[in-house]
């Protein structure tokens, strides 16, 4: 018997009122995949991510986690499921009134029974994992954009989630920081066995870390490619090859 995919998007249509952004999206993501949602600007990548993480209800269709329908579940089950997600938002979304340590500690304080000193240890560990050891008592306003993203990642990892969602993780980062973040994502996947879902159009990142992807097309308003991005760059439809080869089909 084949195990259910870790995540499955089934017949999903996204719309704002009567305006359909994307329709009939069908794809699945296996456990341990690094999956990229790609497409041109304004095609609905971030909206799809927000529907997958339960922030916005789809117009039709649904998302299944381990075979369970997220949108058909009751509110309590949805919240439980969300606690298994780690989410890195575009600008880090750190709480500005809290220090980095307090940002990372908050999920541990709310959802575990760990002793306060063990929470402090775990916070230092998570910050060390993203290269921010020693920055525990800094406020978000005191650190750079790249550091905010890494701190956001430390917070996303606080509860050792099985699924990590990243919204444009490399946006605004210099190439070296972007490369370091890619390496970190790969390490986290390999070490923890987490499933990673990324929204990005950074080609170096896509080719460096992703093993599966979906391409959303703004013109036809549906997905026009699904598979390993390296394969799609070679043998995909013209539009996708052009996108993945920087305009050269």
């Amino acid at each position: 018997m084949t195990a259910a995919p870790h995540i499955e998007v089934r017949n999903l249509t996204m719309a704002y009122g009567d305006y359909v952004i994307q329709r009939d999206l069908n794809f699945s993501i296996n456990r341990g995949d690094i999956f990229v949602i790609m497409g041109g600007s304004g095609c609905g990548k971030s909206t799809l991510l927000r529907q997958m993480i339960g922030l916005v209800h789809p117009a039709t269709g649904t998302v299944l986690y381990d075979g369970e329908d997220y949108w058909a579940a009751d509110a309590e089950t949805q919240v439980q499921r969300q606690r298994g997600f780690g989410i890195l938002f575009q600008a880090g979304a750190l709480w500005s009134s809290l220090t980095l340590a307090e940002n990372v500690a908050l999920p541990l304080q709310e959802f575990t029974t760990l002793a306060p000193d063990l929470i402090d240890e775990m916070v230092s560990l998570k910050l060390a994992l993203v290269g921010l050891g020693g920055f525990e008592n800094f406020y978000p306003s005191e650190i750079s954009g790249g550091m905010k993203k890494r701190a956001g990642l430390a917070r996303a990892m606080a509860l050792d989630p099985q699924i990590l969602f990243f919204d444009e993780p490399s946006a605004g980062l210099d190439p070296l920081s972007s490369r370091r973040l890619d390496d970190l994502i790969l390490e986290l996947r390999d070490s923890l066995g987490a499933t990673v879902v990324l929204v990005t159009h950074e080609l170096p990142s896509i080719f460096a870390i992703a093993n599966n992807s979906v391409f959303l097309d703004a013109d036809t308003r549906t997905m026009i490619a699904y598979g390993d991005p390296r394969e799609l760059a070679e043998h995909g439809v013209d539009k996708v090859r052009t996108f993945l080869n920087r305009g050269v089909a």
Partner: protein
Amino acid sequence: MCTAPHKLAMKFDDLPDHWRAQLSIDGSAEAPCLWLSGSWALRGTVPRYGEIAAQFAAARRIQIGARELSSWDSSAVNFLAALTRDCRARKIEIDDSALPDGLRRMLVLVFAVPPAPTRALLNKPTLLASIGLATQQAWRDWPAMVEFAGEILLSVARFVSGRARYRRGDFVYLIEEVGPRALPIVSLISFLVGTILAYMGAVQLALFGASIYIADLVGIGVVREVAALMTGIILAGRTGAAYAAQIGTMQVNEEIDALRTLGVSPIDYLVLPRMLALILMVPILTLYAGIVGILAGMTIAVLVFDVGVYEYYNETLSALELKHFAVGLIKGTVYGALVGFAGCLRGMQCGRSAQAVGESTTSAVVLGILLITISASVLTIFFQKLGI
């Protein structure tokens, strides 16, 4: 090679049962082997390295590995990181080749970047220190306020000479936002305050059979003082706070920097239209609030104290003079300008975070009400001295 249990400083059997499911030690005291097993989960019971560190007091070399380790998460990484840190500090050799690949890689990540020097959290100041700091801050605030007022005056000069850059569309929107959209709340508050004023006065006046003088009390009180004061305070909470939040958020998003780099003065573009909108609209709102207050007084006088409508109307007309309206409108205009000044000042001084926007908004309301109160006192004395 670790096989035989060594003599432990603390008998391992003395440890809680759940630890034995997750940890075991064998080998010799000089070269112990630590084995991780079972399930390590943050949401379960988490062994702490600090509590078994004594086991390794005599160790020269430690081997770490996994035996029937069914699952692990960062609780295992944390345990091993603490062990590694301790061993490095005591120059004890560690062999982690028997650990699962994932765990070893996580340990590499933990120690990949040397930690920056830690910074202690700033201590919360004591009550006395807080008072001192607040006083210092208030003292430093005055020059900034004077400077901002100067910038506004220069901007007004540019506006008068037609050199100020602002969008007329924005100005019309601001006027609508300050004036017509504030009517419901101004109506409600003015009516209620007029009612309170009439009722309080009437109870005393009725003792002397002088209920008709409610019209004088409410008419002069509302038109001269209360309408302007209430309008000012409503606008401090409604419009001043909105100005601080709007301009503050623009600071956070670097929109004000973008204006400056285009050579557009943020004072001309953002502050002046807001100040002018308030200065234009507040006299009208004050007049409106005064009329609503008088009507409220009339309602109470007629319904509760049996004063005739026409009687009340005539008494109000005879009590009110043009100077009362002039005083009320001048005060209202001054309060409006101060509310705009406080909101825009705090918005422009806002920091770069969501918390800073909140602090600016609060501060704008507090400063607005403070300035209204101070100016109310000064203007009252001023008009008294002039005999108006």
